[in-house]
């Protein structure tokens, strides 16, 4: 009996110890959950009208469209309002439920539809509460959205002129797989030119047609007969390619998507160092399908597709025991999924993220854009070498001639008689 009781005591103690350790382990596991500390949000605008219908478009008449060309529709407003609600749900603990100027910075490209999209989004993300309402019947508050004229914006609109990029893009167009692609679709381009009344010569031209037809089907407009053999396929495939091209090569990525990724990394590193001023938690960027595609390409995670309305890239920063991690999430439908950078895991250690993207981050964008292609290109071809040599020899000859000429002239000036004549003339 005594033995039994003491065994029971031991068992009891053991169970207690196990229970305690399990609780401890569990609480420890909770400690091991990464904590979200900041996020960069990039999205495409919502549903819009066609930017510019093709000349023979039966729906060219503006009466088919409630607002002007390329404008956000009420459907687009709703899409973004809902995305705002979704973001609110996801980041509610990060943002403490309210808009604060020191927490959030919002930027948009300087285009009506992107400005209106982010305004609608913020209406869902930050509805005013109680004392924040300035008009009793209006559950809305103004939140500043910053823009830069498009031709000066190399970060978000990615439209500031960059000669080096243009040169690199011309090179990329000459890559065998791209050339083959355009060759393969020559017949289609002719067909499109014939039926649309606009000249279709490139992948980009074809994407334009695809976009218009896509919008018209969304509006339940019946497409003309001629579209049957080409829409959606193969037009969709070409359109998908058109989103891959602008940041196809590492050089293009560095100049196109690089500046925005650089800005994100800068936010992350400053946040980690505690030097972010103001110490923001959320940066919101409102832009276009091309922006979304270019950023994914730059990060090396673009799967060829057309980024849909309100598609969103989230670049989140997490902290776990003083180590910082980056997570890239892509939401192109109702579902958001984490994308993994090649060579990293879903939660990618910040330093590793930085080193993996290093080659696509420009050190000085402005300078690199105006850097002459001839001297920067890694593979100087024969033609450029011979051009260099020839111009070198020519300038050497010119220099010799100039020196000889200069020396001779100096000898003449030193001639005392000449000097005198000049000075008397000058006195007269």
């Amino acid at each position, binding site marked *: 009996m005594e033995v039994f009781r003491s065994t029971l005591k031991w068992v009891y103690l053991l169970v207690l110890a196990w229970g305690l350790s399990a609780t401890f382990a569990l609480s420890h596991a909770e400690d091991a959950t990464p904590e979200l500390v900041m996020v960069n949000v990039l999205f495409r605008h919502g549903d819009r009208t066609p930017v510019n219908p093709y000349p023979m478009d039966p729906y060219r008449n503006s009466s088919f469209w409630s*607002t002007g060309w390329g404008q956000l529709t009420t459907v687009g407003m709703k899409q973004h309002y809902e995305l705002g609600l979704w973001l609110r749900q996801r980041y509610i603990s990060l943002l403490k439920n309210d808009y604060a*100027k020191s927490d959030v910075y919002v930027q948009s490209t300087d285009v009506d539809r992107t400005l209106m*999209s982010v*305004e609608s989004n913020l209406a869902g993300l930050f509805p005013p509460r109680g004392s924040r309402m300035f008009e009793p019947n*209006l559950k*809305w508050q103004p939140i*500043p959205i910053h823009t830069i004229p498009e031709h000066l914006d190399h970060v978000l609109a990615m439209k500031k002129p960059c000669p080096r990029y243009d040169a690199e893009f011309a090179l990329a167009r000459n890559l065998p797989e791209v050339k083959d692609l355009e060759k393969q679709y020559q017949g289609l381009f002719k067909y499109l030119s014939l039926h649309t009344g606009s000249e279709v010569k490139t992948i980009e031209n074809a994407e334009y047609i695809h976009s218009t037809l896509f919008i018209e089907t969304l509006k339940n407009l019946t497409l003309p007969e001629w579209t049957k053999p080409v829409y959606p396929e193969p037009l969709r495939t070409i359109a998908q390619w058109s989103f891959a091209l602008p940041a196809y090569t590492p050089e293009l990525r560095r100049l196109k998507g690089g500046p925005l990724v650089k800005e994100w990394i800068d936010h992350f590193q400053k946040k980690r160092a505690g030097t972010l001023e103001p110490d923001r938690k959320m940066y919101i960027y409102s832009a276009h399908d091309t922006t979304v595609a270019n950023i994914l390409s730059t990060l090396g995670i673009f799967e060829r597709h057309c980024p849909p309305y309100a598609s969103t890239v989230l670049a989140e920063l997490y902290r776990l025991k003083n180590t910082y991690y980056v997570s890239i999430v892509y939401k192109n439908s109702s579902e958001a999924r984490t994308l993994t950078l090649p060579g990293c895991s879903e939660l990618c250690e910040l330093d590793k993220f930085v080193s993996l993207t290093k080659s696509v981050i420009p050190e000085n964008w402005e300078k690199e854009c105006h850097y002459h292609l001839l001297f920067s290109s890694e593979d100087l071809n024969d033609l450029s070498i011979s051009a260099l040599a020839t111009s070198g020899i020519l300038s050497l000859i010119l220099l010799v001639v100039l020196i000889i000429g200069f020396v001779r002239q100096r000898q003449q000036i030193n001639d005392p008689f000449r000097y005198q004549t000049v000075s008397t003339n000058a006195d007269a």
Partner: protein
Amino acid sequence: MRDSSQSAEYRYHDQPAMTTSSQFTLTSNLIKHKNQRMKCFTVSVLGIAIFAILLAYVAFADKDGDGKPDIKVAYVIFRHGDRNPTESYATDPYNDIKYWPGGWGALTNKGKLQMYKLGKYLRSRYAELLGETYSSERLLVRSSYADRVIMSAGALLAGLQPPSTSEIWLPGFNWHPIPIHSTPRSLDQLITVKKKCPRYDKELKEAYQSEEISKINTDIADLYRHLSANTGQNVSTVLDVEFLFNTLEIEEANGHKLPDWTKEIYPEKMKEIATISVKIFSQTPSMKRFVGGPLINDMIEKMVENHKHSLDQKHEVFLIAGHDMTVLNVMRALGFDETSKPDIGAAILIELHAGPPGLGESTDFVKLFYMNSSSTTDPIQLSLNGCDEICSLDSFVSALSHVAIKPSEWETECNN
């Protein structure tokens, strides 16, 4: 609206009056050879005819001439609404963020409401021009870089153009998005005009060192001493006084009791100095052209453009959201030198009105109004130097040709 129709009538009466006198001379020549009865008859027939013409004019005027809106273009430049202080001073009893929800420099709820109301007022004034539904072709909104200014524009738009029934996109939500185009400070050569301009910087430096300002500095040395002693910081320029004035003004507006040392100098004396300070930025004609000229050029371009394409019946509203300096610089460039420091919600309204119907586009004319603060919705009409209250577009353009400056000219002259 009312002002415009009055002025239109006033012109219509003018026109027939001229016709009358010329017809009378013609008639009197005829009568000489006719008898008395004939004379009487002719006079009454002509009288009736003239009366009919007059009546027709008046009738047309009432109908706003073929249903065309009176106003073709409205160009509105306004200062943002009530804000929190952007800075404080060393001994400030309210130098604590707890007094200023929203943060330093933020637009307050009061400010949002002021702007919302200004939007409603502008709606009543330009209803026809704006139309029921929002159109990006009719309304263009631009703002400076500053949060409080972008937010002011947003709140104003909530009052100016709420969604019409057909535009409601969320049931029960009386708001819809309208784009506001802003420009970073360092790139802005229109509203804040803070883009780098070496020539202007040089002129500003000279203005600070001018005899006039040196004399003021000597005259108010006592004020500087008084302020330095009480604020716990060095106050030695008119700009220092201006910043201090701004802070005190906001604190007072928000119901905070100001310290006793302010009693004798606030508001009058300090506002006077603050006004001198803000005027330095547009001290000379050349400086006025640099800081006020770009917006004047823009408004002229917009009016001339509209005037040229009047067959398209394009009617437009342009809103410029800016700062006190934006409003003041433009007022002074327009020739209103004596304007004092614009209050919260101050606005300049420039309107292109259609001339009397049937008289062609050349009779289009410009009207100019100023509202010094958000508390008034009774704009004061001003007349430009060298022009009447009703100023033809041509006269308006030529009266301002010396201050209007195109972006390319601005760039060149700045770097000269």
